[in-house]
């Protein structure tokens, strides 16, 4: 029998999506857009301040309900570079959980490095209203 090259068929799944930010996400993004502020969501039962906000506390599972300002400064806990892209985990001042975002410069980067949030000029209510974090 003749040997036959394996046959493959190409395809692509193209589905446009729209995701709601939800109750808490809307509040957070509105503050970012309208006030240029980053808010944390504090659990009254155990003081954990969540950034970004979540509907249940990572410690006790109850619904956190107190909005508190956090940042714009913070401490860098981890970072990674791939080619031109740089990401970091930032422990914002006043927050318990860390935020993932872009790093706008890689010089200098060290564990414990102080960084500050940079906001976009034109903000639309998206996480990219924060352009990223700049080492101080």
């Amino acid at each position, binding site marked *: 029998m003749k040997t036959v090259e394996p046959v493959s068929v190409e395809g692509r799944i193209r589905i446009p999506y729209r995701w709601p930010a939800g109750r808490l996400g809307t509040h957070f993004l509105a503050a970012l857009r309208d006030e240029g502020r980053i808010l944390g969501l504090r659990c009254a039962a155990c003081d954990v301040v969540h950034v*970004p906000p979540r509907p249940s506390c990572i410690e006790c599972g109850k619904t956190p309900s107190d909005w508190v300002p956090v940042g714009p400064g913070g401490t860098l806990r981890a970072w990674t570079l791939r080619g031109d892209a740089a990401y970091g985990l930032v422990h914002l001042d006043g927050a318990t*959980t860390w935020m993932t975002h872009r790093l706008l410069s890689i010089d200098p980067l060290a564990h414990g490095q102080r960084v500050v949030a940079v906001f976009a000029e034109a903000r639309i209510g998206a*996480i990219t209203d924060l352009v990223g974090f700049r080492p101080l």
Partner: protein
Amino acid sequence: MRPVAILAAAQTRHVARRDDANYAELAFEVVRPCLDRARIDHTRIDTVVTASSDFWDGRTISDMAVQDAVGAAGKSASKVSMDGVFALSYAAARVNSGAYRTCLVVAHGKASEGNPRAISTAAFDPIFERPLGLDDHAALGLQASFLLGTDVRNGRLSEADLAQAAAEAWTCSSRNPNAHRREARTPEQVLASPMADSPLREDMIAPDSDGACAILLADEETGRREGATVWLEGFGAATWPHPLGTRGFRYGAIRTAAAEAVRQARLEKTGAIDVVEVHDASSAQSILWRRALDLRADVDFNPSGGAMGAQPGFATGLVRVAEVYERLARGEGKVGLAHGQTGFVGQSHGVWILRRA
């Protein structure tokens, strides 16, 4: 949980690309030998649980495609959309419910059919993380970076540690005929590989593989009758919060999962474990998970090469169970631990304790 017998296990040779087989054929490649080794024909499989990813398979009910291959047609079956290590717990539950005497678990992953990095981006929080373009490798880089900067348990990791752990994995997998990576590497060679997601170099990150694995379980009565020598005795699973920054990259969830498995298996301590296989998606994880499990120093750790040797998607953790099972069945140890994970940098962990009777 009541002990469940393992009658047989089988896995494919995991490779970068299987153009000659679709994933149903890949699944069949492991089902046939699994049944043959157990000397059981497909009419004696009472039920099936499969593990597969709709995103990886580009198919919204990915289990639909494999049901003929796994002998599920006309039978009660289900699918877990996570690593096979978790599907195995559902299988154990089905067997222990009294409704089924045997249960076949089949997991597959064909990284080559899609773009694993792009797919992984789709798993991040769509509002707060996905727009940043993060993917699973970036998350691994962040985890490794954290470990270089933080005194976790036994001191900060160094780049040399990452290279050493990677070299050990490459060496073990070079001896494993089923592994994707078949060459040994020295730490120097690892350090010379291109930087990927700092501080991880390419050779410090697990590969993306095409492969499948099947394990056949039986209830106590059937297991004894078939002369099963290796038993699943304990299972623990734990899921940590989703956003990367809430987990602190420590090892909490794996310890919770392991503690539960150890408790169910009535083990005194993890020091009693002779052979361990963990899903290490990077050499930083090879070190971190090992530290988290409090194993004894001379434990046989990832003798197959671990995920660093082959990472066929959702089959990866099930392969860990198969590897431990085979070693115990050969008498290379009495107690084993097999670990799997789903989600970035260990959001969900599943841990099994296996014992040779």
